[in-house]
């Protein structure tokens, strides 16, 4: 079994390359954790200025871990200067909340906690709550929305890097040419690569997804199996794209040059920045990028609780990307042997 021979060889090589294994399995966890802490670090100490607040409300707010400053003569200008997170001005039937919103995740946390408190019947005294923002507006993106996409991104990025460079090494060392002087079929080489590195990508996906969901507690409403499925398809797309692009690189350094060209633009279109507000032509650029569909599917499942049928279009498009890239890979090997 020639595909089996390649798979066995890849496993042997990877087992000996401990650093690459660490990059594949641990680096995503490290970066993901870092981003998690960076985006969530201040949430516990939200400073809220309250004007004319009744004693029971102040008490409630303090219990909810807010740092409360009582100041009846507060202004929006002061809020901006002192960089408190928010200012709640209680007035009869018409309370006003002003959010600094310099960090959307914090503003979001503040409104959510405040909403929880104000729903309690004893505090209906707040009346209508009108919200105003110092910076930005209510729709600014938050970590919760793009954390699912981060998982997909790390799977894509690290799989891309490792397969791209592994196959490049095979091209530059001449082993690929030597391989094609044996009866192996071009499709068998590509299949061997897909299965061999696919196994490692699969392990990586499981580790990232479980770590994200159970350790970092990233929101997930939908099925974890769907999350794994999406990421496996993402890994396959990334595998085949990395392998394909490696044929356009003459060295490892040139492979690295694909990162700003291929990886970074995809991040812009995968949900960190709101797509709806982009110009039509810009949105169309996003539609040619695999991560756009991956992020949409992951976000749907993890944040909105979509089912398999809701993401089937995204999955199909991703699978098409993989099929196209795999076919191009098989064709590109003709460079070495026409059979």
């Amino acid at each position: 079994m020639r595909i089996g021979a390649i798979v066995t060889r890849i496993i042997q090589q990877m087992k000996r390359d401990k650093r690459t294994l660490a990059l594949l399995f641990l680096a995503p966890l490290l970066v993901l954790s870092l981003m998690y802490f960076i985006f969530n670090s201040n949430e516990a100490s939200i400073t809220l200025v309250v004007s004319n607040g009744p004693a029971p409300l102040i008490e409630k707010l303090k219990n909810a871990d807010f740092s409360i400053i009582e100041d009846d003569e507060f202004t929006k200008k002061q809020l901006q200067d002192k960089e408190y997170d928010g200012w709640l001005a209680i007035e009869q039937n018409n309370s006003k909340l002003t959010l600094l919103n310099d960090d959307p995740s914090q503003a979001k946390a503040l409104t959510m906690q405040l909403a929880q408190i104000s729903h309690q019947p004893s505090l209906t005294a707040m009346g209508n709550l009108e919200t105003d923002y110092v910076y930005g507006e209510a729709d600014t993106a938050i970590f919760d929305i793009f954390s699912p996409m981060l998982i997909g991104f790390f799977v894509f990025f690290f799989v891309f890097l490792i397969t791209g460079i592994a196959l490049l090494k095979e091209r530059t060392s001449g082993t690929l040419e030597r391989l094609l002087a044996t009866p192996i079929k071009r499709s068998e080489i590509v299949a061997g690569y897909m299965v061999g590195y696919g196994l490692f990508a699969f392990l990586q996906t499981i580790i990232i997804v479980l770590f994200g969901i159970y350790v970092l507690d990233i929101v997930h409403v939908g099925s974890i199996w769907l999350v794994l499925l999406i990421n496996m398809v993402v890994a396959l797309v990334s595998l085949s794209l990395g392998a394909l692009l490696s044929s356009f690189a003459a060295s490892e350094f040139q492979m690295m040059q694909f990162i700003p060209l291929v990886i970074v633009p995809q991040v812009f279109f995968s949900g960190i920045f709101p797509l709806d507000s982009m110009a039509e032509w810009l949105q169309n650029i996003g539609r040619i990028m695999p991560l756009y569909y991956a992020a949409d599917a992951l976000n749907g499942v993890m944040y909105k609780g979509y089912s398999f049928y809701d993401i089937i279009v995204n999955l199909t498009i991703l699978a098409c990307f993989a099929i196209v890239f795999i076919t191009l890979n098989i064709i590109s090997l003709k460079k070495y042997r026409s059979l």
Partner: protein
Amino acid sequence: MDNHAISIKVLEKSFQHKQVIAPLSLDIPKGQLMGLLGPSGCGKTTLIKMIMGMLKPDNGTIEVLDLVVPHQQLLKDIGYMAQSDALYTDLTGEENLHFFAKLYPLSKAERMERVAYAANLVRLTDDLQLNVGNYSGGMKRRLSLAIALIQNPKLLILDEPTVGIDPVLKKEIWQELIRLKDQEQKTILVTTHAMDEAERCDQLAMLRNGRIIAQGTPQALKNHYQAKDFDEVFLKAGGDVL
């Protein structure tokens, strides 16, 4: 059906308008050890890659073992050793041999036997468990040769097989090549720079600027040009010193 293992007819190849192989015809008889001599850049490796089906000629045809190149069957029948060692340096010698052996239709028992045979032939049996990254240049060359022999091919194409190998082992390898030719009726095509190796070939073809400038047995070539050694033959045949 004829008696030629390789039959090349008016072959041409250029890279970016530079003619690397001028119209070239060459017949290599079955069961012979054919030496391809020539300075670097004369087109030896290009010619060999075209015989292997790894490069497409611009013009002309190549028949190997009565099949037109490229042909799937030929990939099984030709044992190939490239000019540069194409080995997986992070695997051991044994893992390299087994990996390449698995690409040919061999049973497990046959594979074990061929790996043991090939390793023994190039005196690498004791170093098989070592990572190839730790091999010396000569050891890598020997491993490449072992891989070329792994599937017991009918035709061996070796691109400068003895570069970097010490004289004792070089002699042993040549003895084995001659044994393979005499006892197992294999056809062998070797490219070389070394004049002492040229002496041992049954037939020689001298290549320069993509043309065969002289062809014949070593003795016939020397007689024809009234030369003492091959450096002289080559000079008189219109080439420079190798």
